[in-house]
């Protein structure tokens, strides 16, 4: 209704009203899909351990609305790299997934979006050809459907076993995000533990909005590599989400329990605003 009123305008205006106590009314989230704390694993001391990508999708996407993309892409051993296929087999077993990212579309509090979630239990979420291709296709689908894109990162970086093919997935995903951006569409990066290497140096840092989970390790070089290079211990908290926010690289740190609500609010504000989102 609101959207119909203002959709032709270049900039959106929104009607607000004040409650009795003279505060601007804020939207409350009441039909938040309940995901058990067990799955979210946040009950202990508010820490944010790594969780399975599938559980993450369920915690963010409205029940029954998720449509998964590209489940048929199969990883092959393009470089004849020693033991690669065996590692893939073990990773599949450990994670119950076919590759290190789940992509698809679904609704967040009724709003459409494209979501990509990396799987930390699949070779540490590393990106090879299939991960790069799935993410790129998801972004291109978002351009086609004019949806926002949300990517949850959890990855050690490019996958060694696919060599420079993996490296080039950084350029590929970034180029796709360039097109998404040219279309005026929204991309939210949500950085979870760990986000390092080629992921940080590509789509993790390209969000219009960059959110991080508390305590997540986020960096270009891994802590061990830096310590070897500079030959000293790293300071406490170095490369953690809070450090990144202090240094100006993260918009907002969001507790896992509030993630869906915050994403929903951002999508709502975007859906109201501007000709691109009308």
């Amino acid at each position, binding site marked *: 209704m609101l959207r119909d009123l203002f959709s032709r305008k270049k900039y959106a205006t929104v009607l607000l009203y004040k409650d009795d106590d003279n505060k601007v009314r804020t939207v409350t989230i009441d039909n938040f899909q309940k995901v058990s704390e067990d799955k979210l694993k946040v009950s202990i001391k508010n820490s944010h351990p790594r969780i399975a990508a599938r559980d993450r999708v369920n915690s963010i996407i409205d029940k029954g609305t998720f449509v998964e993309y590209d489940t048929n*892409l*199969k*990883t*092959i051993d*393009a*470089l*004849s*790299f*020693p033991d690669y296929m065996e590692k893939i087999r073990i990773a599949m077993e450990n994670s119950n997934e076919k590759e290190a990212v789940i992509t698809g579309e679904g609704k967040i509090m009724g709003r459409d979006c494209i979501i990509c979630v990396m799987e930390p239990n699949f070779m540490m979420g590393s990106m090879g*050809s*299939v991960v*790069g*291709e799935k993410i*790129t296709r998801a972004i291109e689908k978002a351009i086609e459907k004019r949806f926002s894109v949300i990517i949850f990162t959890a990855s050690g970086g*490019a*996958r*060694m076993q*696919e*060599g*420079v*093919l*993996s*490296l*080039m*997935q*950084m*350029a*590929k995903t*970034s*180029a*796709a*995000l*360039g*097109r998404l*951006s*040219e279309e005026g569409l929204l991309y939210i990066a949500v950085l979870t533990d760990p986000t390092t*290497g*080629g992921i*940080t*140096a*590509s*789509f*993790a*840092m*390209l969000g219009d909005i960059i959110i991080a989970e508390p305590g997540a390790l986020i*960096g*270009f*070089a891994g802590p061990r*590599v*830096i310590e070897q*290079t*500079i030959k000293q211990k*790293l300071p406490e908290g*170095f*490369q953690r989400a809070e450090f990144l926010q202090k*240094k*100006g*690289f993260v918009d907002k740190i969001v507790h896992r329990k509030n993630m869906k609500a915050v994403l929903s609010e951002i999508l709502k504000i975007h859906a109201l605003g501007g000709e691109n989102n009308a």
Partner: protein
Amino acid sequence: MHNILESEKPIVELENKLVELKNFASENNVDLTDEIRILSKKVEKMKQDVYKNLTPWEKVKLARLQERPTSSDYIKKLIESFIEFHGDRFYGDDNSIIGGIGIFAFPANSREGIPITVIGHQKGKDTNENIKRNFGMPHPEGYRKALRLMKQAEKFKRPVLTLIDTPGAYCGLGAEERGQGEAIALNLIEMSRLRTPIISIVIGEGGSGGALGIGVGDRICMLENSVYSVISPEGLSSILWKDITLAQKAADVMKLTAQDLLSLGIIDNIIKEPLGGAHKDIDFVTDNIRKYVSGELKELMKLDMEQLLDKRYNKIRKIGIWA
């Protein structure tokens, strides 16, 4: 002569013998023409055998050779009136990436040239210079300077030539604090849509994200003995086998040579080097680069902007192998 390859040693020995033989012949006024001819042939054959069959690890060593020509060596020969520009306008100037403008001269007989922006990793020629250049390992400022110069090139409609030669982006406290990942990521997205032709050439070491950070373009090619990889062989052997000394074994499985990248569909072309490597005859390499860049630039400049950007996108888009 330092830094020679193990497999080069017999060649060097034989070459020294040849010199001795020639000296002996002229000093003692004896005719050794036949012997000299036979030995010369033998040296030539040996060179062919050795240099045409370099192992991946030997190519890594060749790509890292201190004598190997650097970005500034090629810029001196390729670009007329090159003017270097400094700084990222945010934080500082990074000496491990150099950049500036000049006139790229088309092959000598054409007497044509074109204003161009050139950006390259810069290694040092000795320890002192290497310290100044941080061994060619940029901080975020280097990538931000590169991007500033690329946006400038876009504004003034100059093509961009980038020369890649880095062990990798620097891994240190300051680099992390100032957003090494963000700086490289931004270059990837901006280069993928920069509204002017970009040609990238790997001239030595193509070290991972640190190389790719100035390596997205309409044409990507490699000098014959350069390497390009997702991680250094030492890094890979340390991760996979917890043993840095297995770097040679790592190099063998990584598919990091120019020939490998061509067959994987990642690069467009291989630029010939003289037998033994670029340092043996830099003019030969420069001529080959000049011919290649001239030809490709002329093609790219014919395209209208949307065509150029579509082709660039599709080029990057199609990289990857799966079933």
